[in-house]
């Protein structure tokens, strides 16, 4: 008995000692600091409200992605009255049993509601740091002190224009690299893919702002007008591709989904949910009835578009120590075959449709592989007839780009001069040149017949920066 009591005593002593220590070490209670809009209130709005109250989908004519919009409010009037939480519209919506908002989701937690109340009562100040404000628009296009990383390249079907990704914009250049034609400045901070529609009418862009929103932009290729800006999900979109008839546009997303958009209406006509990680790239089957998607989850999936039904994993075998899964895919221009690349650095050609019964772990659809590139394959593209392709890879501190012959798996050219990761490649539709670009921000044009560099240029104008402070 005595022993148990002693043990009890020890526990109490421990418990008490701990309590004392906590008291001594504790920083002043958080209430001492005013509630922060930028750090505390905004993330709540971001996560729980902005899905339905954002520029692309302003439910109740209310947008909650910025302080100014919150103040302005929507149909129910100004969003809040500074200093008077109980009179503020937002409080009336988020408090209650059940509260009116968020609709179709769990109510905000009591501490979140309390925080918003406190922030309003403390005067509803906007403490967003200047560094976090996005001030770029068509009127205030980006100014570059250093060239941006190039993540996407695309030639127009007539081989006259080369579209290059920039920061917050797509830059249209003469295909021979002799000059800039136009700047397509949109909302997306990051541009992840650029595609001309096969009929030449559209330039489709996927991108967004990481961890904020994803966006599809459809620009009129002739007038350079932004016709569609559709915000989708809360992170960036990737890997856009047009159907051969230019009617549909498919893309992947950071939200693990792939979607197909009807170009005429801008409506999403199919959403694919089968991947378990971000979807890097998409391509349509030759008959346009199926979509092929590749993902960081290492799988290449086949889906019927009409029924949105998942058909098959074309492959899910990507050995290799690097992470990243499968990152690039394109259908052969004339066959039901796809060229795929990813973290193992090996370009591979696959049959889209299975000719042998499926077995766990099989790789029956594989037609052939090509000599492995260093690092991870990020981008690849066939020429117009599918007889050759260009492929680019990135290996953290270096990169490579090559041209292969499709049918005999011959490495035609190691394209020289790449000193950093290659994130984008494009084959000019007339078959004469390929373009490469990536981490170093330079666009390089190579002659397909000789594999030699024709020219290289920076896609943006550089304005020397003010000297950096130490």
């Amino acid at each position, binding site marked *: *008995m*005595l022993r148990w*009591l002693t043990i*009890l*005593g020890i526990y*109490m*002593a421990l418990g*008490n*000692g701990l309590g004392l*220590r906590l008291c001594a*070490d504790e920083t002043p209670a958080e209430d001492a600091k005013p509630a922060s809009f*930028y*750090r505390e209130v905004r*993330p709540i709005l*971001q*996560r729980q409200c902005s899905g339905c109250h954002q520029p692309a989908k302003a439910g109740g004519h209310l947008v909650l992605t910025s302080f100014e919009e919150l103040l302005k409010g929507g149909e129910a009037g100004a969003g809040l009255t500074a200093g008077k939480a109980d009179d503020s519209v937002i409080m009336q919506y988020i408090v209650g049993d059940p509260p009116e908002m968020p609709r179709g989701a769990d109510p905000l937690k009591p501490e979140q509601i309390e925080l918003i109340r406190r922030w309003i009562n403390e005067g509803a100040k906007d403490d967003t*740091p200047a*560094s*976090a404000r*996005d001030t770029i628009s068509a009127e205030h296009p*980006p100014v*570059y*002190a*250093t*060239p*941006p*990383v190039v*993540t996407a390249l695309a030639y127009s079907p007539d081989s006259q224009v080369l579209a290059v990704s*920039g*920061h*917050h914009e797509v830059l249209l250049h003469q295909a021979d690299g002799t000059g800039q034609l136009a700047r397509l400045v949109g909302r997306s*901070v*990051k541009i*992840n893919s650029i595609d001309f529609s096969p009929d030449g009418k559209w330039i489709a862009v996927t991108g967004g*702002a*990481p*961890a*904020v929103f994803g966006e599809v932009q459809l620009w009129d290729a002739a007038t350079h007008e932004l016709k569609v800006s559709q915000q989708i999900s809360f992170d*960036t979109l990737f890997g856009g591709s047009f159907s051969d008839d230019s009617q549909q546009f498919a893309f992947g997303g950071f939200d693990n989904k792939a979607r197909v958009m009807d170009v005429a209406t801008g409506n999403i006509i199919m959403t694919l949910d089968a991947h378990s*990680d*971000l979807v890097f790239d998409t391509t349509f089957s030759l008959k346009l009835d199926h979509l092929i998607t590749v993902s*960081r989850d290492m799988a290449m999936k086949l889906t019927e578009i009409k029924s949105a039904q998942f058909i098959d994993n074309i492959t899910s075998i990507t*050995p*290799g*120590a690097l*992470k990243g899964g499968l990152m690039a895919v394109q259908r052969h221009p004339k066959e039901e075959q796809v060229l795929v690349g990813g973290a193992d650095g090996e370009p591979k050609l696959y049959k889209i449709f299975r000719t042998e019964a499926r077995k766990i772990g099989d790789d029956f659809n594989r037609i052939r592989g090509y000599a492995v590139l260093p*690092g*991870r394959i*990020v981008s690849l593209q066939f020429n117009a007839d599918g007889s050759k392709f260009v492929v680019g890879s*990135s290996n*953290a*501190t270096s990169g490579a780009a090559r041209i292969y012959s499709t049918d005999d798996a011959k490495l035609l050219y190691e394209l020289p001069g790449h000193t950093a*990761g290659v*994130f984008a490649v494009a084959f000019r539709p007339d078959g004469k040149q390929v373009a490469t670009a990536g*981490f170093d*921000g330079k666009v390089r044009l190579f002659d397909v017949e000789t594999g030699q560099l024709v020219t290289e240029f920076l896609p943006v104008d550089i304005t020397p*920066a003010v*000297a*950096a402070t*130490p």
Partner: protein
Amino acid sequence: MLSLTRLSHCVLAFCCSMTMLLAEEAASPQIVSIQTWPEKLVLHDVRDARGLLVIGRDAAGKTYDLTADAVVSATTPHIEIDAERFVNPREVGSSEVIVTAKGHEQRVPVVVENVEPRSIDYVRDFLPHLSKHGCNQGTCHGAQQGRKGFKLSLRGYDPLYDYRALVDDVSGRRFNRTEPAQSLMLLKPTQGVPHEGGFLFDEQSRAYRDIAQWIAEGCQFSETTRPVRLELFPSAPTLDRRGERQQVQVIAHYDDGQSRDVTRDAMFEASNFEVATVTKGGQIQAVRRGETAVLVRYEGVYGNLNVTVLGNREGFVWQPAPEFNFIDQKVNQKLERLKALPSAVCTDAEFLRRVTLDLTGLPASADQTRAFLDDSRDSRSKREALIDDLLNSPEYVDHWTLKWSDLLLSNRKFIKEQGVWGFRNWIRQSLAENKPYDQFAFELMTASGNSLENPAANYYRIAREPREVMENMTQVFLGTRFVCAQCHDHPFEKWTQTQYFELSAYFGGVGRKAQGTEAEVIYDLRNPQTVMHGGTGQPAPPKFPFTVTGYEASGSDVPRLQLAKWLVSAENPYFAKSLVNRYWSYLLGRGIIDPVDDIRLSNPASNPELLDALTADFIAHDFDLKHLLRTIAASQTYQRSFITNEWNKDDDVNYSHASPRRLQAEQLYDAIMVATGAPMGVPGAPTGFRASQLPDAAVNVPFLDMFGRAPRESPCECERSSEVSLAQTLTLINGPTISDAIAHPQGLVQKLVTQNVTPKEAVAEIYLSVLNGLPDDTESNQGTAYVTEHGLLVGGQDLMWALINSPAFLFNR
């Protein structure tokens, strides 16, 4: 009612102790002067910001850390003091800072050598921020699968891996060169975008500025080396009272001669937070008397502070204790520093029982006891003579064969019954001839041939995969645990995943061929099996995890021969030291590094000077195991009483008194036989076999399992249990092992009955036999009265039973 009273008593006592603790807190000292560390600053480049420790002194010369209270100000525009009171270079030239604390002022010279703009270095300027803010810790992006698709190497052990994740992943998703502030890697930690890891730093912080600048400068990779060592100041702080604080300064040194003050970016962790805590910024705070290590980690290098909290020692006066050999000198130096007084030397009877149990696994018999106590030589001489006798006895061989059979996992599950006997005999032979320890290990590492003809070859039948052999080898012969490094770099040590596989690769060439059902032939493969690196999937060539001075690989040696030479080299910093530490723990109850097979920086030696001296002596005597045991047993430290005094009662790690240890399973079983005079015998084993002579745990003796004999599945010293359980107590009280032994017809009590001795003589004989000492007068009178009343047989048996169930028998003390 009783329990309630006791409970309230406990609570009361507890309250009192809290009051005392509070009263112990440091009173405000009277500072008479202040100084800084360092005493002057030289700032080598534009980002070489350095801090100052401020030390105050009272009239008695005692020092106090005033860093947290000091005001630091610049005198000229050459320097600027930032919010963390670091001195930042601004212009080349000489200047001074003024440090004020407790009304005293100190001027500290500062030289700024260079302020040339320099770009952010990925390895030295950028990555440390990720560690300091926890981005790469195991619960965040350092997890096996990372978090939310973003994976960093655990605690930043792989800069290239991290560069790929930060820069190359998803085509540069995480940075934005055009508008660095729009970079995901800045928006996330500032909570500019939702971040499950929460808010980590703001836009004004050093981390933000450095990361933003690195991005603006183009996210350049660098292959700059990481630091090679950390310099810590003060390296062994001693704090007096609860609540006293000490700021630590951490200087990182690089192989190119550069150094940096990285106090703000290093990680601190106290190994025993009941003794002292440490803040994120490296300020240690005393909690109670004791010692703790504070581990400091920065970019793959580790440092270690030994923090001593003295507590209130008013009235303490050091009294020199006798020193029998160098061990006592080292132990006493530590005790004097800690203000602890060692216990007195134990009695001859206590020493006899202790040393006999420790060296031979058996207690002394009544005859041995009588002979030793009657020996008229002076105590120290006869103790030394006894040590030699014991080391040369056959029981020494049995006892240490058991220990080594445990460590080497001699188990018929792995090597069949014949293998167990053969291996046992090889170990016995080695110990009997006192084979030098380096030779012993070398023969095991290089053993080849038929396991029946060369039983040492059984070593390679126990662990069969290169990784397993390596894990066992490092734990037994180097006292370190490599196993964590299989999946990632060791989180608390310098061992890396790459080293894990490279070291395993030395065993890739071991071939095993079955020879009948009982044996195998061990040989060297012509084409060694390739060990694949678990992280990169690439082959891992054999490479040592640390270099050993004087050792040079010979290309003509097969890999495991190279390994054996490297392992047993006198210069190997772990080989001799880990053995010495292990043996010390067997005799003193606790390793100088403890646990003995988990040597790592974050588990430092309680007395490094002692361990070094023992190691040096062991090596100087050619790895002579008997010499080592003799030296330890002959020390005054070993011979101390377990009875504590006012000044050492709270010490359990510095050997100021003996620590009673429960007899181990085999020892206990055999001791019962010796004490009762019953003939030796273990159920299922040939007559005369002692428990300590059993070949392995497959001989089924429930008594031994209950008392925690080692099952020999893993080389961990923790396999052998010394815990005390209720079932054990019941077995000792009621179990047949003891009652049968006491009542044995050939036993002591029966013999006394036959000899018809007097009750008083019987009591003395029973005390001598069970406890190895004569009863004092009270014990003798009580015992005699009892035996007189109940008769020699019953009374004698009862007395013996009672003594066997006493701590004086069950514990080696």
